[in-house]
């Protein structure tokens, strides 16, 4: 349904069509991956408006610079890299502007007011968890956040994340490790309400996955 126009073409072939002047090829390529690219942008930037700007910037850049794609990585990796870079760029510019860390204070407030609610049984718990996680993610450095978004949240293999971020596998692991260590104090309380976990298990954490809003990897949205 997402590929009415080019059902049989690979991403690389679509990009080639785009380079040859096909008007629809790039839009189709974006359609295939937009939900994942959106997830990367909005999780990294932590602000839907800014994320939309970053993603648009990234896609226009990718559109214009498609000739720079060398084929030494997957097209998706290349697209993700452009989106991550646009997101981090936007954050850097924003930080340069807003010297005061309003965002972080806001996130701390959110944690202070909502974070203590022990809620793992009521239906709203998944949403609360998501809010807590979003608030906590704002408190860690953007580079660590970007790594965790790719590896932990979106489930990319570390090697793929390294290719996207254009850093070594070791650096990805290190950023993830540091990010998790920083997040721990903010997210630990989410264990409460559940059975006291045994050390070494993960059962204390909410494992709920709702169907709403979930995205299957590599699939676009409606066609």
């Amino acid at each position, binding site marked *: 349904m997402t590929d009415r126009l080019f059902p049989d073409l690979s991403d690389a072939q679509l990009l080639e069509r785009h380079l040859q002047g096909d*008007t629809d090829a*790039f839009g189709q390529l974006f359609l295939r991956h937009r939900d994942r690219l959106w997830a990367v942008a909005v999780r990294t930037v932590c602000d839907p408006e800014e994320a939309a700007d970053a993603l*648009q910037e990234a896609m226009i850049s990718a559109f214009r610079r498609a000739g720079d794609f060398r084929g030494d990585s997957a097209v998706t990796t290349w697209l993700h890299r452009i989106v991550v870079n646009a997101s981090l760029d936007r954050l850097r510019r924003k930080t340069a502007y807003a010297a005061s860390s309003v965002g972080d204070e806001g996130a701390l407030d959110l944690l202070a007011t909502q974070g203590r609610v022990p809620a793992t049984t009521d239906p709203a718990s998944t949403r609360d968890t998501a809010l807590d996680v979003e608030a906590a993610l704002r408190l860690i450095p953007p580079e660590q956040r970007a790594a965790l978004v790719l590896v932990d949240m979106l489930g990319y293999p570390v090697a793929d994340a390294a290719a996207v971020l254009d850093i070594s596998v070791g650096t990805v692991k290190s950023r993830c*490790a540091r990010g*998790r260590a920083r997040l*721990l104090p903010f997210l630990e309380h989410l*264990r409460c309400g559940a059975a006291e976990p045994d050390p070494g*298990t993960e059962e204390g954490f909410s494992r709920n996955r709702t169907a709403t809003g979930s*995205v299957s990897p590599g699939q676009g*949205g409606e066609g």
Partner: protein
Amino acid sequence: MRRHSAHVDTVVLAELGAGMISGRRAARIHAHLAGCPRCARVSAGLSGVSVLLASVPPPAMPAAVATRLDAAIAEEAAVRSGTAVTPVRLAGRGPFRPAERAGAGRPRNRRTSPVAVRAFAAAAAACLVAAGGYTIAQLTSPGGSGRVLSPAAGASIPRNGPRAGAGPLQVRPTHQGSAIHAQPAHGQPAFEVVTSGTDYQPATLGAQVEAEIGRISKIAPNTASGERIRHQPTAQQDECVQGIMPGVPPTLVDAARYQGHRAMVIALASGAGELGQAWVVGPACSAGRADILTHVRLPAAGG
């Protein structure tokens, strides 16, 4: 019983969990974990963080964002293939991004802000309707080189345009007027900037904007007090406003503050049957970047 003289640093435990530590050092930490409930709990908590992060479903792209991005990409494609009429607006003011490398024979596109792109897409649609079906027209600058965009290489690829591949594209001078209407008073800012000194706040933004619009409408531009607070926009302010509201003169442009920070408020008053709206933009707002901090709808006129 094993001794555990000192607890293991959380980052080290996280590195162990990430597979960064191996060999004898890893064995030593594992041995410590076996005998230290506190470190074992931290270690389990760290794995729990990963599980928790994975449990949050990725957000679906909002329909409005999808629409906006589709429009931006379609506009970009239209510009590239020469079917868009919209570059007219930026021809006189927008900085063109210099070619960074020898391209594949494709025209270089101008730099646009995301918001502007969206607006351009709408303007393009309007222009195309106005042009009465002459969709494949690239307007040339008067007296200029008459740059006519030809379809990109690969003529065998089918295109959507009604006259795709029909040779060099023709300029339709008789329709220039309708396209140029998208930009009033070309080259001349159609608004003035006031400096009210207001510190706009999120909770009261709409009311503050309304109050400012009311106040400004009472001050004649040529009085002494009027001159003191009305200025011609700087080039950047002009580009910023044009990017956000291309072709529409704003009711109010106030170089003020928002939550204590330097910001500019751009507002369009409510009109007949149409809600007004206001944007608060940061100091970085320019032709290439909207830098929108927030946006509100204004109450209906008289309400």
